């Protein structure tokens, strides 16, 4: 039995279920409680769970995120909302040193079962400082885990896995996906948990592999339809879902099947998740590649504001189709 939920509702349901499951789960962030969340992900939760479990914070990301990390060391399981993931910049030290390194530096005596979540995307006309895409940035730090759901079902499943995980997990949501709908298993069928580290083949194909995560998956799926309809090209779409841990086996499997790859990644082209995936593929499936791996990334400039062209700076189906067609 399956229902249709928005990505936002799916996240909320996941949060709500985990709040019910474990009294140490506490949601914190700016405007998450009384205001119901800047993007309404936490709508109704404060009313249901009250002041202790759903906590509004001042605009002090370094302070409250560090506070969450400290509390997690004592066994609390904070789920911290960054109103935008872009605001990681003012809390970076807490995010990459305290959360990522305290276990290591203590020789394993401490762990930080904390979740940081919020939207991490461009495309909403809020300019350069508000449109960072930091999946690759954080996945580069051993000690951290990173995931980026593309669908409502994955959003619910991954947020639940993240909360149960005993390591810091950074969940990258997407403002432009919050309103999208999809089937999500009914709670009566049991816990819907999507493990970290497991990619999902969102579309089968034989000619080329499109590998993506987050909203780029949606673009890749749209591009695959066009490629099929207009060019007779059968594209397989692999949704990474989790960036670290990363499902390297699934990546190599699709490459070995199609022998051609286009990576779709909302990151800027210097680095990003796709540079890492390209590096892994060329190293571990070198003999299977019939053509160089190509990438469709965000055009290499700070995010432009103008809504007339902002979407053209980002990966989109037509840029993907074009890129695929350059591959012989």
């Amino acid at each position, binding site marked *: 039995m399956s229902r249709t939920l928005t990505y936002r509702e799916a996240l909320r349901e996941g949060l709500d279920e985990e709040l019910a499951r474990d009294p140490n789960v506490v949601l914190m962030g700016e405007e998450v409680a009384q205001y119901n969340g800047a993007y309404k992900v936490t709508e109704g939760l404060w009313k249901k769970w009250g002041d202790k479990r759903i906590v509004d914070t001042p605009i002090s990301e370094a302070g409250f995120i560090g506070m969450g990390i400290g509390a997690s060391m004592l066994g609390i399981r904070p789920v911290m909302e960054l109103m935008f993931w872009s605001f990681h910049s003012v809390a970076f030290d807490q995010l990459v040193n305290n959360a990522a390194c305290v276990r290591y530096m203590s020789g394993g005596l401490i762990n930080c079962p904390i979740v940081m979540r919020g939207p991490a995307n461009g495309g909403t006309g*809020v300019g350069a400082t508000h449109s960072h895409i930091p999946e690759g940035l954080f996945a580069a730090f051993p000690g951290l885990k990173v995931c980026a759901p593309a669908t409502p079902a994955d959003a619910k499943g991954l947020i639940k896995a993240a909360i149960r995980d005993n390591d810091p997990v950074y969940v990258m949501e997407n403002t432009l996906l919050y309103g999208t709908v999809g089937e999500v298993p009914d709670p009566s069928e049991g816990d819907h948990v999507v493990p970290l580290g497991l990619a999902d083949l969102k579309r089968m194909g034989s000619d080329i592999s499109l590998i993506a995560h987050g909203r780029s998956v949606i673009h890749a799926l749209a591009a695959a339809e066009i490629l099929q309809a207009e060019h007779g090209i059968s594209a397989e779409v692999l949704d990474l879902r989790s960036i670290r841990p990363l499902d390297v086996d699934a990546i190599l499997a699709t490459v070995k099947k199609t022998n051609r790859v286009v990576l779709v990644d909302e990151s800027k082209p210097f680095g990003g998740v796709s540079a890492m995936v390209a590096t892994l593929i060329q190293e571990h499936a070198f003999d299977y590649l019939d053509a160089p791996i190509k990438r469709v990334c965000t055009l290499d400039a700070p995010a432009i504001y103008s809504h007339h062209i902002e979407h053209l700076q980002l990966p989109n189906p037509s840029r993907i189709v074009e890129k695929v067609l350059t591959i012989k």
Partner: protein
Amino acid sequence: MSTAQLDSPRLDFAGSAVNRELTPERKIDLLRQMIRIRRFEQAALKYYNAGKMNGFLHLYIGQEAVATGTISLCGENDHVITAYRDHGHALAVGMDMNSCMAEMYGKQTGCSKGKGGSMHFFAPDKNYWGGHGIVGGQTPLGLGLAYGLKYLGREGCCLCYLGDGAVNQGAFHESLNLAALFDLPVIYVIENNGYSMGTSQKRSSAYRGCLAQRAEAYDMEWDVIDGSDLYEVRAKTHIAMERARKEHRPSILEISTYRYYGHSVADANAKKYRSPEEIENYKQNHDPITLFRKRLIEEGIVTDEQADQISKEAAEEAAAACRFADESPAPTIPDIMTDVYWETDNQTPASRIGHHFFND
């Protein structure tokens, strides 16, 4: 600031030196400036709702006396920098409505060529350094402008604006310590409209008397100002600016004010976290434009009709700006790749060495 403070017996700041020297024309200009800001934003709101803009629109309506009053004191070596609620300051420094409106429309003719949007207006030629979206992020920049002024030996100061919610960002505190330690001519103007998004001052800040008093921790001067009274804004800000210019001593000014609209136009909760009575009280009793207009009429400087005419002209100017913006060309894809590096924009020899960009 609490309404209690606002409602306490008022001093009349019209007589302070910096206001006494105002000519009638200049006073009318100040009224016009505030009205222009309001009409500009009302037009922006209309076309934002009509889908002409994207992202956030943070309206300054209700706060006009703060930008107008403080910036009216600026001389050629005084500089201005603020956060994302930046339209009022932009017009107050003398930016024209066309380039500001076009910026919001995301057009090439925008002050930032459509690259910055509503939160990122800039006009360095008018000593206006933005428009910054990261809460508190502009506060060290304002410090740096003050540092630069002092380094270059110019007698001037930097007015750096921030909200009541921004005072809890660490960078602001680091800036306060540096400002006091290095004796830098920066004035931090807290525009206290009582709320950071849906969070009231009480729910976001711990403080003793008021937020400006945090200055004492750094042995810095501070003052509180009623932001509905343009004369008071000018009188008290002038003192801080002179202290900065002449003695290189920084200050915090906390100016109580109010925004009539939500945090941004997208703020669906604007009437949930504030009572309709509270909003109505400000509009009725503390509107800076209404009060100053009334004052100038009392002073015999304008008539009702003249004031209406100013208002009408401002509305027409704003409407024209919307037409200008609408008819302007949008940036094209190649525009995405300019204004990243000075060297590549200027096609210098350095720009021809190595790859600066990595588009696939």
